[in-house]
């Protein structure tokens, strides 16, 4: 049955109003554009789950960050050719020896070098904290490292509490991990 004129006009007007409302809303209802997140450093990762990859362990076999889930981990991305990294290692070793009993893990993850190169340096520096050899540089890429050394503090729940680029003094390392070691909550500092 053909539509009467009034019904037709009503439908057209109603549909047009709905169409305009829907169309306008879809353009002003939200933000536009892609915000790049490829840079900016590890500080931007706070609160996100810490990525874990199985890589070679200097002690033999393979190791990963996830092995230390439930503990406070100071992840240090470094390399033997990096002068600030080398100067930082005595402080890392000292922190590990002092706070190991409190549940702290210092995890050194070498970026891009072979185990032989890393082992030679570790022996010379008499380091005892666990060292992983990340030849593929996966950790460095995932932790938004903008240089070396890069330090990432991971809470007991496996989330990144803080990311810091550049060498740290012993006092700065202690300041970063003490609140987590004192707290029994997974992330509270």
């Amino acid at each position, binding site marked *: *049955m053909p539509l009467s004129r009034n019904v037709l006009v009503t439908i057209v007007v109603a*549909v047009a109003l709905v169409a305009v409302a829907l169309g306008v809303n879809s353009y002003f209802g939200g933000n536009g554009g892609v915000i790049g997140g490829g840079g900016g450093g590890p500080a931007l990762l706070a609160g996100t789950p810490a990525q874990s990859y199985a890589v070679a362990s200097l002690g033999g076999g393979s190791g990963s960050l996830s092995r230390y889930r439930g503990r406070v981990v100071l992840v240090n991305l470094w390399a033997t050719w990096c002068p600030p990294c080398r100067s930082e290692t005595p402080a890392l070793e000292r922190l590990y020896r002092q706070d190991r009993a409190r549940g702290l893990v210092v995890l050194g993850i070498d970026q891009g*070098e072979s185990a032989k190169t890393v082992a030679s340096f570790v022996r010379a520096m008499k380091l005892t904290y666990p060292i992983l050899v990340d030849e593929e540089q996966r950790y460095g890429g*995932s932790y938004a490292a*903008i240089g070396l050394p890069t330090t990432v503090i991971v809470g007991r729940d496996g989330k990144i509490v803080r990311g810091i680029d550049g060498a740290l003094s012993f006092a700065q390392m202690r300041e970063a991990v003490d609140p987590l070691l004192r707290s029994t909550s997974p992330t509270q500092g």
Partner: protein
Amino acid sequence: MALIAAGAVVALVGAYVAVPRWGGFHAWEYAAALVVLMALLASYALGARTGRDGDVGRWLMLPIIGAFIIGAAGLIDGLLGPDSDVVQRAPGSVAVVSEVRAAAFFPAADAGDIGRGDVGITVRRRNGAALVLTPGSRAYVGATALQAVPRVAAYVEATDDAGERLTVTQPTNPAFLSPVALFSTLVPIGGRQVPADSFAIPARHRALKVFYFAAGSIPGLQARGFAGGPLVLFAVDDEHGSLVPGGIAAAPSGRFVAIGGLRLRATLGTYPALAVSSIPSPALLWLGGAIFLGGLLSAGFALVRSRPPSAPAGGTLCIT
């Protein structure tokens, strides 16, 4: 004529949804075509309302209205929607995609992953499930189309003369520790624009440039021992930016070359970039589509029912 115009509108907007990355949908020509077709529809609708085509005209009003709404959706997005954007990030990076209130995770990749080219991008929405875009696949999220577009990439490895691995960095890239060349720069070489990327080998105080040449792009290479596939050209500079003696060499994918005190290898393949394109409002498309199809069905049904029954053969029988 009106139905043809309506069909053309639906086809034009349908193409927009099917191939959202094409820049032509935001061009004035596309908008002009839609406006002309929609004007035809409006003109027919006004005439039909006054009974120009009789009942047929009135029955076709609904599909014409539906096509008009679809056309309006295409026109609005074509004029106001943003152009497509391609987000290229290094493996391990994250990009915020605010159009869909999500974060795109570009996964870590080793030489094998790059060579196979099967790494996908994971898009995690704030209130929804994760969406994995495999290379070449597309997903629609509201008024946005997301597609993982494979792009040429190379995984670069460096060792010393003894074969001990050396750290590869990208000092001028936000992804400092990514050894994956994404060839985001074009460098003029020999009258052509050649994709290039740059790295550093800090343990040896060397800077490295990597250039990509597609298969067959350099005539005469087969005569020099390169079997027709794509290849990379390495150029090694010292810490002062000067080319080291013998510091240029070409190699096919996966082959080590010794130059500048280094042994270098590039594994060629692909790594995905994320294409983000706007599409016409899905709400308008659904509304217009429902009215268009419903109107077509209704008109067809009414047309069939309105046909007079056919007269019996042979006329009437008179008995006098």
